[in-house]
C-alpha cells in the first residue's frame, strides 16, 4: 500500500470513529430536525393576513364618520377597533394609552394623541383620513358632492419595479448570514475535534504504534481530511434536509444568481475547514493533555471572533470599507467575509480569485508547517511546547529527524 492509501485509511478511521459517537449523531439529528422543521413551521403557521390589530380611541369631539374612512384607507392592512372615549377622564384615557390598550386617540380638532412616540404607518393612515374628511368639508364649499371628492381622491396604484433583482436579495443575504455563522462555528467545532483526536493519540500512547508504520505527515493529512469530510458530510445532510423541506413547502424559488454565489460559499467554507483543522492539529501536537487545550486555543479563536464581528458589520452596513477589504485577504478570516461581500455585490472578481488563492496557499503552507512540528512533538509528553520551539521545528533542516 502506498502513501495516499494510508492517508485514506487514517481519514476513514477518523470519520468512522467520530461519526459513531453519540454526540455526533445527536448533533446531526438535531441539525436535520431544525432544517426540516424550520420551513415547515413557517409554512404551516396560521396565516393572519398580515393584519395588524390597532385600537383607536375616539375622543368626544371626534367625527364618528372618520371610522369608515379609516377602515377604507387601511385596505384590510389593519384590523381596527374603535373605542369611544366619551365620559372617560383624561387620566383614564392616558393610562389606557400607556398600557397599550389604545394605540392612539383621535381628538378634536385634528389632533392625534400618542403615548410616547408617533407610530408612523398608523399616523399616515389617520392623517390621510383626517385630510380626506377636511377635503370633503371644503369640497362642499365648491358644490362638490362627497362622491366627487372621493373620485378625485381615488389613489393611483403605484407599481414598484426593481431594476437589479440579483443584488443582495434577502434570500442571498440570509444565506450569507448563515454562511458567516457556519464559517465561525464549524471550524471551531471540527477544529476542536481534530485537536482532541491528536491529543488523545499522544495521551494514550497509540501514536507510538502508529508512527512505527506511517509517517507523521500521513497521520496529519489523514486526520485533517477525515474531519473535513465529516464536517462537509454534516453540512450536506443539513442542506439536504433544508432543501427538501423548502421544496416540499414551496417556500422559495431559487433565483439563478444563487448558483453563482454557492461555489464561493462552498470553497470558502472548505478552505476554512482545512485551514483551521490543520491549525488545531498543530495546536494539539504542542500539548499532551486535554487540560492544556485552552492555553493554546486562544490565539486561534481571536481571528475567528474578529471575522465574525466584522462579518456582521458587512451584512448590516457597508461591505466595502477599507478594513473589510483588507481583512478579506487574511486567510483565517476570508471564509467568513468573502461570501458576504459576494452576496452584497461589493467585491471585484479579482478580489474573489486572489482571496481564495491566498486561502488555498495558506492552507497548504499550514499543512506543511504543521507536519514539521507534528513530526518533532508527537512523542513529546509533559509540558507544552512553546511557540518559539515549534517555529524552530518548522525551520529545521529536513531530514534531521
Amino acid at each position, binding site marked *: *500500500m502506498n502513501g495516499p492509501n*494510508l492517508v485514506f*485509511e*487514517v481519514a476513514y*478511521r477518523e470519520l468512522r*470513529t467520530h461519526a459513531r*459517537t453519540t454526540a455526533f449523531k445527536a448533533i446531526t439529528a438535531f441539525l436535520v430536525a431544525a432544517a426540516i422543521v424550520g420551513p415547515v413551521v413557517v409554512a404551516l403557521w396560521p396565516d393572519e393576513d398580515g393584519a395588524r390589530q390597532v385600537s383607536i380611541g375616539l375622543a368626544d369631539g371626534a367625527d364618528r364618520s372618520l371610522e369608515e374612512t379609516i377602515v377604507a384607507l387601511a385596505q384590510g392592512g389593519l384590523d381596527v377597533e374603535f373605542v369611544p372615549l366619551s365620559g372617560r377622564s383624561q387620566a383614564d384615557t392616558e393610562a389606557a394609552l400607556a398600557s397599550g390598550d389604545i394605540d392612539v386617540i383621535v381628538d378634536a380638532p385634528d389632533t392625534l394623541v400618542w403615548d410616547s412616540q408617533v407610530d408612523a404607518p398608523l399616523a399616515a393612515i389617520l392623517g390621510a383620513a383626517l385630510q380626506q374628511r377636511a377635503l370633503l368639508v371644503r369640497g362642499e364649499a365648491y358644490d362638490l358632492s362627497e362622491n366627487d371628492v372621493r373620485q378625485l381622491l381615488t389613489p393611483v396604484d403605484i407599481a414598484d419595479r426593481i431594476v437589479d433583482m440579483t443584488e443582495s436579495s434577502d434570500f442571498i443575504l440570509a444565506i450569507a448570514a448563515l454562511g458567516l455563522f457556519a464559517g465561525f462555528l464549524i471550524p471551531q467545532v471540527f477544529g476542536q475535534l481534530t485537536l482532541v483526536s491528536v491529543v*488523545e*493519540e499522544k495521551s*494514550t*500512547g*497509540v*501514536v*507510538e*504504534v*502508529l*508512527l*512505527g*508504520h*506511517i*509517517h507523521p505527515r500521513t497521520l496529519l493529512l489523514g486526520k485533517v481530511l477525515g474531519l473535513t469530510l465529516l464536517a462537509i458530510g454534516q453540512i450536506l445532510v443539513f442542506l439536504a434536509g433544508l432543501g427538501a423541506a423548502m421544496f416540499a413547502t414551496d417556500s422559495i424559488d431559487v433565483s439563478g444568481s444563487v448558483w453563482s454565489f454557492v461555489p464561493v460559499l462552498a470553497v470558502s467554507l472548505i478552505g476554512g475547514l482545512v485551514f483551521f483543522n490543520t491549525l488545531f492539529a498543530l495546536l494539539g501536537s504542542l500539548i499532551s493533555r486535554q487540560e492544556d487545550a485552552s492555553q493554546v486555543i486562544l490565539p486561534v479563536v481571536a481571528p475567528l471572533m474578529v471575522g465574525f464581528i466584522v462579518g456582521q458589520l458587512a451584512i448590516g452596513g457597508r461591505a466595502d470599507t477599507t478594513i473589510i477589504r483588507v481583512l478579506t485577504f487574511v486567510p483565517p478570516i476570508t471564509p467568513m467575509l468573502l461570501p458576504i461581500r459576494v452576496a452584497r455585490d461589493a467585491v471585484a472578481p479579482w478580489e474573489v480569485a486572489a482571496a481564495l488563492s491566498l486561502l488555498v496557499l495558506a492552507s497548504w503552507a499550514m499543512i506543511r508547517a504543521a507536519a514539521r512540528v507534528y513530526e518533532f512533538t508527537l*512523542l513529546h509528553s509533559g509540558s507544552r511546547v512553546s511557540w518559539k520551539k515549534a517555529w524552530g521545528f518548522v525551520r529545521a533542516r529536513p531530514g*534531521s*529527524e
Partner: protein
Amino acid sequence: MQRGCTVSISPGDEILISDGLSAHGLSKRFGDLVALDGLDLTVGRGQLVGFLGPNGAGKTTTMRAILGLTALDGGTISWDGAPMSVENRRDIGYMPQDRGLYPRMRVGEHIAYIGRLAGLSREGAADKARHWAERVGLGDRENDLIQELSTGNQQRVQLAVALVHEPTLLVLDEPFAGLDPVAVAMLSTVMAERVAGGASVVFSSHQLDLVQDLADELTIVSDGKTRVTGSTSELRRRSPTRLLRIEWDGPEPSWAPENATRLDAPPGVSVFRVPASSDSARLIAEAAREGTFASISYEPPGLEDVFLEIVAS
C-alpha cells in the same frame, strides 16, 4: 569489530551475523543527559534476544531508535546488512513500553487497522485480526471496545497489534509486565514460534527468571553502553565468582573455604561465594573432611547475580 555486522561473544570467538538486525554505536543525548553512549545490539534471524539493563539504561530509547521514532545523534542501524529503510521499519512489529491503543475502537477493528497501516490488504487484515485475536485469547471479545477490557487483556490486544502483519522483526518493550501466568505462557510460545519461523525477536524485561528460560542470547546494557553479550550459560560461566552450596547431614561446621564469602542460607545449609578460579575438587574434599553432607553443588551464580555484578562493575 566490523561495522555493525560482527558480534563478539568472547575473545577469540567471533561469529559473523549478516542477517537480521544490527545496531552499532548508537548515541543519543537529551540535553545534557547522555541516554545512549555507543550502544550495540545485534539480533540475528531466528534469534530471540533478551535486552536487559537497569532503569534508565537506554533500552526504550534504543528500541524507539530502531523504529525510527527517535532521531539518533550517531550510530548505524541496519537490517540484513543494509541500512534500515522506511519499508523495513514499516514491517517491524512493535510493542511500546507505554502501551497505546485507541480506547474507543473495537478489538478486532483495531488490530485490523494497524494491519492495514502495516501494509496488509483489507481482507488480509481482517483475516489476520481474527486469527490473532483468537491466538491471544480474545476470540470472543472482538467486538468489545478496548476501554471495556482489563489492563491485562488490553495488553493482549497490544501484542496482537504487534503481530498482526507477522513481522520479520519483533521489538517488544517489557512485553511480560502485567501479564498473568497463562498470558506469559502464551506470549512465550508465540515468541518461540516466530523465532522458529525465522523472525528476529528482541524483548526487554526485568523478570530475569523468564529471560533466562526464554532468550537464546542476552545483551545487558547500562548507562547507554552495551556491557556484555552472550547466552545465559555463557554469561554465568564468565562470572568471576562461583557458588558452593552444601546441605549438611548432621551438625553444621564453622568451616569456611579460603577467599569465600558466606551468604545467607537456611539452617543446616551453607552457601559460599568463592572466586571462579577456585579448585572445585579441592573444595569438595575440604568440605568432606569438615563434616558429612547430604548434597553439595559448585556452580556459576544465577542470572540475577550475574546481572548485578555486571551492572555494578
